[in-house]
């Protein structure tokens, strides 16, 4: 364990190998089964990674180790980015949100029960094949774009997609910025994000907020709380009078990466800002899915979860 206090030192330590650890909720769970061996670079004392800053245009910069609970409860963030704070408030449990960070949420590994089980090996742990594809993949993807069928677990990524947010990372000593959408490769069966082992995600950058925005987050689960969603959806609508000026809709639990749903967005823009517009906008979603034998139920569930989130965002 190393505990650097500034970003450069943390980045330098990471380049030597191992994993960064912030809240530790994902790393420690994997370490318990031997799936994360370390060494671990603790980010908790790197002051420059924590907290929320605002620029002159009202855009937020959220440090990578800002906790999910802090994001959920921040009044200024809630005002500017309601889809983000609603998502943060709904994920995991209070204890996990209290220590889990936005960076960790974006870079966490997938929840596939084969990947997490030390008895199995697959693309994701350096092995070959996907036991879930041949086996029981009821929690798997419904857009089949990669040799791996584990959906990406980051709820916050879906929320950040609807804001066109970017992430800042230190890679080989250089600071670079990339869109959240490019943090993930839906075709990649071996990794859950594109950052290299030595890269350090330092912040999430949001654009200035839009006026007249309404937003919502929904997840489909069997139990009322504390469950990874079968499907989750986040919607953000900017309206002018009774018309939708712009719409951004993203979904999780369905693909190797959180996905935007451009056809749904296009169907909404220019139309009435009314919940009754939702059903038609989502009607084509099942047809665009490529379900696995065990995830056919998700095609309709994706449609209906997005419909639900839109009805709320348009209300």
């Amino acid at each position: 364990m190393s505990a650097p206090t500034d970003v450069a030192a943390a980045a330098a330590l990471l380049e030597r190998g191992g994993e960064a650890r912030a809240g530790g909720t994902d790393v420690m769970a994997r370490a318990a089964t031997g799936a994360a061996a370390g060494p671990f670079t603790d980010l908790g004392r790197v002051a420059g990674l924590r907290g929320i800053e605002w620029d002159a245009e009202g855009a937020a910069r959220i440090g990578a180790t800002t906790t999910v609970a802090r994001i959920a409860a921040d009044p200024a963030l809630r005002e500017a980015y309601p889809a983000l704070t609603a998502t943060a408030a709904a994920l995991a449990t209070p204890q996990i949100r209290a220590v889990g960070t936005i960076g960790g949420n974006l870079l966490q590994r997938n929840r596939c029960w084969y990947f997490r089980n030390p008895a199995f090996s697959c693309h994701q742990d350096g092995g070959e094949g996907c036991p879930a594809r041949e086996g029981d993949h009821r929690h798997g993807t419904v857009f089949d774009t990669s040799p791996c069928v584990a959906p990406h677990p980051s709820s916050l990524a879906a929320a950040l997609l609807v804001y066109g947010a970017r992430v800042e990372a230190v890679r080989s000593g250089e600071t670079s910025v990339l869109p959240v959408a490019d943090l993930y490769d839906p075709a990649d069966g071996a990794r859950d994000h594109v950052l290299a082992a030595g890269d350090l995600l330092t912040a999430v950058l949001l654009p200035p907020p839009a006026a007249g925005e309404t937003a919502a987050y929904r997840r489909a689960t069997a139990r009322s709380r504390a469950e990874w969603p079968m499907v989750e959806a986040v919607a953000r609508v900017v309206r002018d009078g009774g018309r939708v000026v712009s719409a951004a809709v993203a979904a999780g639990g369905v693909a190797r990466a959180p996905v935007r749903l451009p056809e749904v967005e296009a169907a909404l823009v220019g139309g009435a800002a009314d919940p009754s517009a939702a059903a038609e906008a989502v009607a084509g979603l099942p047809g665009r899915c490529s379900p696995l034998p065990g995830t056919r139920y998700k095609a309709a569930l994706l449609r209906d979860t997005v419909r639900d989130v839109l009805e709320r965002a348009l209300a």
Partner: protein
Amino acid sequence: MDTTVNGEPATAPDPDAPAAGLIREGLGLTGTKVACGQGVCGACTVLVDGEPAASCLLPCSALEGRSVTTVEGLGGDHPVQRAFAAHDALQCGFCTPGFVVEAAAFTDRWRAEHGDTAPGRDEIADALAGHLCRCGAYQGIYAAVAAACTGAFDEDTGAEPPRAEAAEKVTGRARYATDSYPEGYWEAVLVRSPVPHARVRSVDTGALAGLGAVHTDLLGEDRTVRYTGRPVLAVAAPTRAAARAAAAAVRIDYEELPAALDTEQAGKPGAPQVYPDAKARRAAPSSNEAAAVPARWQGNVRGPAGLGFRRGTAVRRINEAHARGDRLLFAAEFSTAVQVHTPLEPHACTARWDGGELYVEASTQTVDGLARAAAQRWGLPLDRVHVRAHHVGGGFGAKAGLGLETVAAVELARLAGAPVRLVFDRAEELSDAGNRPGTRTRLAMLAGADGGLSALTVDSWGDGGVSIGSSTAAMAMLLYGRSPRRVRDHDVVTNRPPGSPFRGPNGAPMAWALEQAVDELADRLGEDPIALRRRWDGNPKRRALYDTAAALPLWRERPRGPQTGRFRRGVGVAASNWPYLLDPSARVELAVEDGRVVARTATQDIGTGVRTVIARVVREELGLEADQVRVETGDSGPVPGPGAFGSRSTTSVGPAARDAARSLAAELAGRGAGGAPVTREALKSAEGLRVTGRRTRDRRGPLTPAVNGGVVAVGRGLAGALHVMEVEVDTLLGSVRPLRCWAGVASGRIYAERPARNQAEGGVVQGIGYALFEQRVTDPATGAVLTDNLEDYRIPGIGDVPDIDVHFHREGWEHVPGGGVGLGEVTTVGVAASVANAVRAATGWRPLDLPITPARLLAGIG
């Protein structure tokens, strides 16, 4: 790495290790429990600078310079601790410290923001969403947290808590087997088969001596593993890391055999044989409490084992009704998923040998039975075996008898010359610690033109992995009189882990099918489902429940007819009953020690409240105050007590305690010290007096002689229950939310009101898990259990349970001394069926397969 824990400085040697380990082992603060190790269940919750965090996922490095508060640090007089004790917001107590710590932080925050007002159920559920209580004490938890927020417990009310050991459990002082870390102990781990079916050619343990480890073989004579995860041997070493390293150094040569990994494949001709011959079949374990009824085998299918009343008539009537297309014939195939007990305390044992005496601290439902079995196995006189289980973190049937964890720990302790501790991790607990077998059940039920039950046929196939003994169909003999019926049970064995008895074994899957069929016929007869059951059910005790239920606003004002909105409500009903079992050998000893009465019996409290039952009886009989009676259970010894299974603890020890108390009073009277009520002076004068009470005999005696070494007899009469359940169905996203539940219980006199109510509430909660969420899933290619963590094996959380109203019908058991029988099992058997009938009422769709997942519901309602 320096931190502060409960105000004291502490140092963590390994910054990468989970904080829970430092707190429990390093600092001895064992109130903090580790149950899932994955941040799901919340049992390990501590406050870090006042914020709740899951210490199992928190690296010690995160504690640097911070202040940690554990349950011990709350001091015992936090309003939440008082409220949990007063509202009996706990049963086994294993999850309680985590709940208490989180609720304390929530209550303090809530009051700071809202003043002394009660939060609603949703606010409490949001705050406690990261905690799981397997006993299902949520009703009390809601009440306790709300009350603490109002300030009702700011002062010590001085009221006696409804449960004898409440104070120990809310403070984290209660000690469980998993809290045992004796001086110089070694840690053991199991080496399990990675393949589903193989002959073990050889086990090479040559590397172990060099690693300072010892091992013991667990495979038995035929050297065959029949499921993935089957323990092959156990190894122990001075540390867990060393034990793991030693386990990894064992080389096992498996000659793999073809495996049958699901019941469909296993039942086909030519399928790989789980048991190749009669000898192997005879050694098959049973998933049942009793030995399996003999039956024939055909390949992997065993059975049928049949029972009935006028079987030929039943079959003929059903066939004729089918031929004529009689709409009063309902026939369907139902299925239930494998349900895993999931006690939050895993199977655990610490064993040590000392001068030819064996000391075992185990998480067990049977201290007495375990001691007897151990004495027999290791050839010891019974008085040289000492089994202890002062507190047990849940069992539900999975922790009876001499478990493999105890066998391994005892053997290894002898080899190591040191105490050996063996604790299952959550993956082991969810994979190979017993389960309720799945079932497939074909049921046909015919109502006659007169509206009576004309005929019933049931064929059921149990899915118990390598175990046999499914008797789901047989349970259909217990309800609705003696109308013609034929019931037949089968097992379909596969290369998967064995089942074991689970609260209401066989009854819960039978009720799933039977109570839905009754509901369906009520619908076809155009009759109220409660009225029909009242007519068909000959049980007078349950008749009283029907009358009460029929008058409930919940029932009378239920929505009827088709609904159209997204959220639809329905109310369903289901009846259950359960045999009355007792342990005629149970004894309770009372001794006057230090001016108090100490009650002793070799039973154990796994959350049922048996300590409280004994204390109540003794106090009531002798007229004593709370401080004058102490109950010591959880130790094997000369006073035999019942195992906690078969709903028989209370009805066995209650009368024995009464008998003992009456003997004590008579003895005191004989000495001229007066009888009951007993004065303090009288007790002082009787120091050292010792009497033993027996389980007095029922009027007309039990139905059957006692079996299993005299500890189980079947008594006369059946305990009954009726559940009226209201649900709300989200027809868009497929979830089912139970809103309200009325649970009527006909088990006679209630010995300890609040703990009994709590257990009945827990029965509802577990039934809801069975109905909606719980499903063990195995890998189709290897048979490995995929749901081996609490994220994927889903038990109900606090937000998933209805508001529960328990009603006791207290009459009808006058032939039993004490006037009451057990209720642990009957209170869960019919719950899932009541949910199904409510879903049917809300949506028009009848769920035939458990659990009722959103995917199934959405497909079903179309």
